[in-house]
């Protein structure tokens, strides 16, 4: 497994994937951002990796880092691809961990913080 991964590594260069676009620091896009695909958008004409991102996200929602894991691409490169799809309206970014009903209490956040500090 590792051997075959190793042998595939380096096959695709990141600049070829992004078409030379440098990854910008796009506001609201980080590794945890959830991506929701718009099923109404046509998939034809998309670049290969954009198409794959859409295929991954269409059934539901996926975070940027998960997409990166599936595509086996660096996170920064995936961000460029995702940013392009967000611009074209194919994907809608959604901030992660948003409580649907009520906001987190300060108490809960403190607990989380303490738990994290123990890590």
């Amino acid at each position, binding site marked *: 497994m590792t051997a075959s991964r190793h042998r*595939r590594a380096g096959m695709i*260069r990141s600049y070829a994937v992004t078409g030379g676009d440098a990854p910008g620091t796009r506001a609201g896009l980080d590794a945890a951002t959830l991506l929701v695909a718009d099923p109404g958008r046509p998939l034809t004409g998309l670049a*290969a990796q954009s198409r794959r991102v859409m295929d991954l996200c269409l059934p*539901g*929602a996926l975070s940027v880092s998960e997409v990166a894991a599936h595509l086996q691409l660096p996170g920064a490169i995936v961000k460029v691809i995702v940013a392009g799809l967000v611009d074209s309206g194919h994907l809608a970014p959604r901030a992660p961990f948003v409580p*649907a009903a009520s906001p987190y209490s300060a*108490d809960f956040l403190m607990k989380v913080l303490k*738990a994290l500090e123990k890590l």
Partner: protein
Amino acid sequence: MNGSADFTAGVLLASVICSVLLLMVCIVLLAVLLARSRTPERRTRAVTPPVVRPSARTSARPDDQEKAAAERARAAERAQAAEKARQVAEQARESAEQAREAAEKDKEQALQQAGANLQWYNAAVAETGRLVERLNAVADAEVRGYADVAVPGLLHPQFAGTPLSEHVAGAEELLREAVRATRADVSGAARAGVRGMAEEVQMYLARLQMSINEALDQPPGADHHRSLVDMDAHATWALHAVQRLRILAGSWPGVQRADCTFREIVESARGRIPAYDRVDYTYVPDVGERWVEGRVVEPITVALAELLANATSYTGDRVSVYVREVPKGFCVVVDDKGAGLNAFQLAEAERLLSRQTTLDAANLADERKLGFAVIGHLAHDYGFHVDVSAPSPSGGVQASCLVPHHLMSAAPGPAAPRETAPPPAAHAVNAAPAAPAARATTSNGLPKRERQHAVTPVSAQPTQQSITDTRAPEDVAADLGKLSELLGSGLATGRDNDAEGHPQP
């Protein structure tokens, strides 16, 4: 053959000379006979006056005396004439004898000459045979570079200084000159090719250094990333140039890949040319996710990169690439909108594509030919076919690389549920996590890597649903506490399971 002809000619000559001499002898004999027949006439004429004179004279005594004297004189005359005739006959006989001897001698000489000619002829044939040996020795010494090769001299020393020896030396010199000229030509072309490629590699590596310098000056950020991308690109191009060189020198591409899909091949090939941003890849998941056998992945990628380099270098326009299924296999088609190839360029390209060309004088003239030579070499070695003869619909060249079925590979993992299994269903908001076996295969064959066995179980857990407020925060905190314990124990053994396969951005 010639000698015997000469001999016959000599014999003929001798017989002709003999017959001429016989004729001369006959003429001489005839002359003698004529002279003999004429003498009695003279005698009668000489006799007549005394016959007249006695009739004029009266006294008988003096007449008798005179008669006797005349008789004696006549006898003497006759004797003289006879003597003369005998001498003439003798002379004629002698001259006939001489002529015969001369003819004999001529015949002898002609025979000798014919023998000598035959000897010379045989010697010349042997000398020609020796010439072949000499040329062979020259070839051994000059072309094959064998040490201790002695070039033999003339077989027959008597030829020294004759035109024959000059010609032989001329032939030998001609061979040496041809060897010299060919060697200079080939080494010049090879040098030019190696020089060109070395310059290319050097240029890319120099730019790589510049990018590294830039990156070192910058704080981490977007520009920093930009520099990294530049470095990556320059390193990749330099790598490709070196790879091309070694392929032209008769080696294999030097990299063994695992099975890859056409998408990976096209994107990899695109990254290997400087004008990668002008290449449009029309991705169709059906064919784009077909797997190519690992053995031919790198050769096909290099060949495709060469086709793309050609296409982009001859047009400033965009170049389109797509993969198409054909009865014999799959075609990677590169379409450019350039000027196209003229008949001569096409013939040259097909010549280079159709055979296994290595670094030689014929194919290193320019970059474009170099690319075709690389492709021809790879196609010959690995069994795929490249064709550039079809005109592109847009007027340029349509190059196609046919990958036959036997170079394709089955999709790794179970192939049957590939079509029916749900897409990465584990990540669907409302769907239950799919079984790991089903998760390994996808509808479009997209995330089909072994690596995901490690990734998916983890990424499947923190869906939006599980983290939202459907659970009590206390439970979450308790879970986090457990997690921290687990991680604490994990940290003791090693940090590997921290990310659990998540790529680091």
